Structures are given as structure tokens and as C-alpha cells.
């Protein structure tokens, strides 16, 4: 891929490495090793790997929460760590746990990002209300997080991420703490919302099934994080081809 492609790519990681601790000292380790990865506009990338393979480190570098030791990370052509404030309203994150502010009601939690974007209170309320309704939470607007079930709380956190209308969504195993049925239902709703709203999404998971259900493309990581295999998926992929991909991924993960 040439550098001219950077205009089409929402996210680029070029020769990115990340190490923790001082080299040679006890506890030092390499989390990401010379990784090249590009995510196109509107693409939904499932990043799959075993626990501790550096998925969250990649996630934090794309989110601008940490800086690579070597190489370059760009999102929409800018450095998300150094130009941190430039991504206000352009990037939203759905975390593994809901991370709702306990002192805010469901609707106030959804309004958080909109407050930071300095929307008027009427606008905030209308947008938050619409997203809560979209995610089936009508009637729970004024409930505090402790009064909501795990699935409802995670839906509020998804509404909070979508409410800012950011064009890039980063999701760190957002459904892993939910039961199978709730997780599947929310996953389906999530994919529909991402597609309908034309978002670019990076979805971290350790579940092969989840990656197959969600991604336009699956990248399987080895340890330290680098691409083991990169598999594009088409919506029309047959059950047989998905089974072949599943066994291919299983083979890589077992290696």
C-alpha cells in the first residue's frame, strides 16, 4: 500500500512497536512488534487475538491514550496522541465494561459527550433521548446505573458512543461481560447501527464467532502483536467458507 492511500484510510499504523519498561530490565516486554495495519473508511475491522497479545495496546494507541515507542499511528491523517483535542467528537469508544458515571442518570450519561461538544441542553436531550429509544431504553432515561441490568447499562454506553456522531468507533470487547443471548442481540443491533451510520469501526474481540458475525475483515494477531492473518469477509460469504475461515483462525491461534 502506498502513502497516497492515507487519504482513503481512516486509520494507519506504520511500523508501530510498543514496549513497556526499560529494555533489559526485569518486567520489560514488547507488546506490539513492527505492526503495519490500515483500516479503510467505513470498514469494520475485527481484531482477534489471544489474551495478552497486545490488542488493548493497539486500541489505546489508536485512541490516543498512549504513544507508540516506534513507528507512526495516524487517524484521519493526524496523530491521535499529539493532536489529542483535534479528535473531539470524531472518535468514540465503547469499553469492555459500561463505565457509566454512577452519579448520572442513563440520559445524563448519554449526554456526556454532547456536553463536551458544547451542544445546547435541548439538543443534548433530544439526541440522547433518540439514542436511548433506538436501543430500547425508553422509560429508563432517569434511572441511575445501579438500577439497570448489565445489558441495559452496556446499551447506555453504546448510546453514549453513538450520540456524538463520531465517524470512528473503537470497541474493546464490549459484549464479553454479557450473557450469550444479550450479547448476540446487542451485537446484531450494533452492527446494524454501524452500517446504517457509515462508521469506521475497530472491534477488539477474543471470540472467533463474534469476529465472524461483526467484521468486514478479520485480523488475527500473534504475540507480540503483529498480523498473523488478514482475512477480508464478504456479506455473502457462505456458511462453508465461514467454517473454513474459522478453522484457519483456530489453527493460527493454536500455533
Amino acid at each position, binding site marked *: 500500500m502506498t502513502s497516497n492511500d492515507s487519504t482513503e484510510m481512516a486509520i494507519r499504523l506504520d511500523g508501530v512497536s510498543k514496549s513497556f519498561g526499560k529494555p533489559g530490565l526485569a518486567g520489560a516486554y514488547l507488546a506490539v512488534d513492527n505492526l503495519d495495519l490500515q483500516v479503510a473508511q467505513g470498514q469494520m475491522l475485527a481484531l482477534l487475538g489471544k489474551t495478552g497479545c497486545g490488542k488493548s495496546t493497539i486500541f489505546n494507541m489508536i485512541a490516543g491514550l498512549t504513544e507508540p515507542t516506534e513507528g507512526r499511528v495516524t487517524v484521519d491523517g493526524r496523530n491521535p496522541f499529539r493532536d489529542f483535542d483535534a479528535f473531539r467528537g470524531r472518535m468514540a*469508544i465503547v469499553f469492555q465494561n459500561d*463505565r457509566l*458515571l454512577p452519579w448520572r442518570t442513563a440520559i445524563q450519561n448519554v449526554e456526556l459527550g454532547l456536553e463536551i461538544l458544547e451542544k445546547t441542553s435541548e439538543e443534548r436531550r433530544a439526541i440522547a433521548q433518540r439514542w436511548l429509544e433506538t436501543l430500547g431504553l425508553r422509560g429508563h432515561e432517569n434511572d441511575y446505573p445501579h438500577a439497570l441490568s448489565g445489558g441495559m447499562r452496556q446499551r447506555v454506553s453504546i448510546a453514549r458512543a453513538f450520540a456524538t456522531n463520531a465517524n470512528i468507533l473503537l470497541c474493546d470487547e464490549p459484549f464479553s461481560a454479557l450473557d450469550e443471548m444479550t450479547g448476540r442481540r446487542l451485537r446484531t443491533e450494533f452492527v446494524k447501527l454501524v452500517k446504517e451510520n457509515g462508521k469506521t469501526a475497530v472491534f477488539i474481540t477474543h471470540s472467533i464467532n463474534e469476529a465472524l458475525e461483526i467484521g468486514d475483515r478479520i485480523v488475527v494477531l500473534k504475540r507480540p502483536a503483529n498480523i498473523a492473518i488478514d482475512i477480508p469477509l464478504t456479506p455473502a460469504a457462505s456458511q462453508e467458507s465461514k467454517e473454513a475461515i474459522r478453522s484457519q483462525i483456530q489453527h493460527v491461534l493454536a500455533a
Partner: protein
Amino acid sequence: MTAAQYQLSDATRFSVSALRRVGTYVLPFVAVAAVWQFASLFFPPFLFPSLVDVFWRFIGIVTDWAQFSDVIATVLRILAGLAGAFVIGALLAVVMAQSRAAHDFLSPVLTLFQGIPALSWVVFAIIWFHGIEPRIFFIMVMTTLPAFSFQILGALQAMSRDLVEMVMSFRPSRIKLFRSMIIPAVLPDILTAWKVNLGNASRVVVVAELVGATGGVGYELLQQQQVFDMAGALAWTLQLVFFVLIVQAILTLIERIAFRYRAVSERSL
């Protein structure tokens, strides 16, 4: 049982429960008052005056502006001292939370201040300052500052990293980060700090006024001591006690409103 009977029994249960709560709250005060009144029957008034005398002296202070202005002066000194200590303490706590070097420098200094007795601060203030009000303000700030700083620092350090990271992911400005995350997260500890320091401040202000003032509850207590007027001493003390109780009740009310989001377990600790 009919619905009306159920409603009646609910109302009775609520009344009994409310009475029990009030009774539990009032009982210790009634017990202390009864013991005092009992003692007043056997001891001379300059040791244990009748509570009736104390009550009328108390009313006399409240209804006489010349005397009540002394109570107001003490109350304002407490509030000004606490406010000053809170603002400086909060700033120091934020600086210590942000910078390791500042923490390593300021923490031992505040610990040193904490070890200096209130009476020593009174002596220092009398030597260093001329006016009464600057002296008392200095004493109040120096005696309550370390507690405010350490309590707010503890609250800042105990903030959930997950929640801070979540709010940061929206890229808030510094003011918005404070408004949406930091202040609500540390508010419970701030209110606790105020409650604790209010008691300390009401004790310290009396010592400060006793030695270095020409007005206020502490000064009036000194006058009562010089004429061996126990009823007067108790009446002046009660003025301060009532002030502390009123402010504590206001803080508790603020807590109830501000922390209504907290889940309440049916099983108590």
C-alpha cells in the same frame, strides 16, 4: 384484611418507625440533660446550675444583639477559616495529585503542620500578626489545612481510572473534566472533610478567641470563667454546639440530595 386496613396499618407502622427514629436521636441528649439536672439538685449553682437557668441565659444571648453579635462573629470566623483552608487545601491537593515532585515536597510539610498543636499556632499568630481577625483566620487555616489537603488528595487518588479514561476518551477541556468527572467523584470526600473539620474548627476558634480576641464565644467564655458563672459558660458553649449541629444537618441534607444516585442495600453493614 381490606385495602383500607392495610393502608391504616402501613400508616401506623410508619408513625411508630418515625417516632422510634426521633426517640433514638433525642434519647442520648435527654439522658445527659437528666444527669446534669439531677446533679444540680445536690451541687451549688457555680458547679452544676439548673438547666432552667442555662436555658434562660441561652435565650438571653440569642435575643440580645450585643451578645448575639459575638456568636455571629465566631460563626463567621469558623466559616471564613474553613473556606480559606478548603480553597488552599484543594489547590495543594490538585498540585500534589498532578506532580510527584510537588507531592514529595508538600506532603512532609503538611504532616509537619499537622503535628503542631493548635495552641502553638495561637502563640505564633499573636507574635506574627497585629489584627485580631488576621490572627484568628491564620490559626483556623493552619489547623485545618492539612486535613483538607490530605482528604482531597486521597479522594483524587482514589478516583476510578476506568471512569477517568472513559471521560478522557471524549477529549474534554480541563474545565469540563473537572465539572463532569473530578468534582462529582471527590464530592463525598469533600463533604466528609467539611464535617470532620467543622468539629475541629469550633474547638480551635474558642482557643484562639480565648487568648487572642476581644469578642466572640471564646472571649465570652473567658469572662464567665473569671466570675465563676457556670450557667453563662454553658449557655455560650451551647451557642457553638447548636451552630455545629445546624451546619452538620445542612451538610447531611446536601449529602442526601447529592448522593441520591447511590444504591441502598436492604441489608445494613
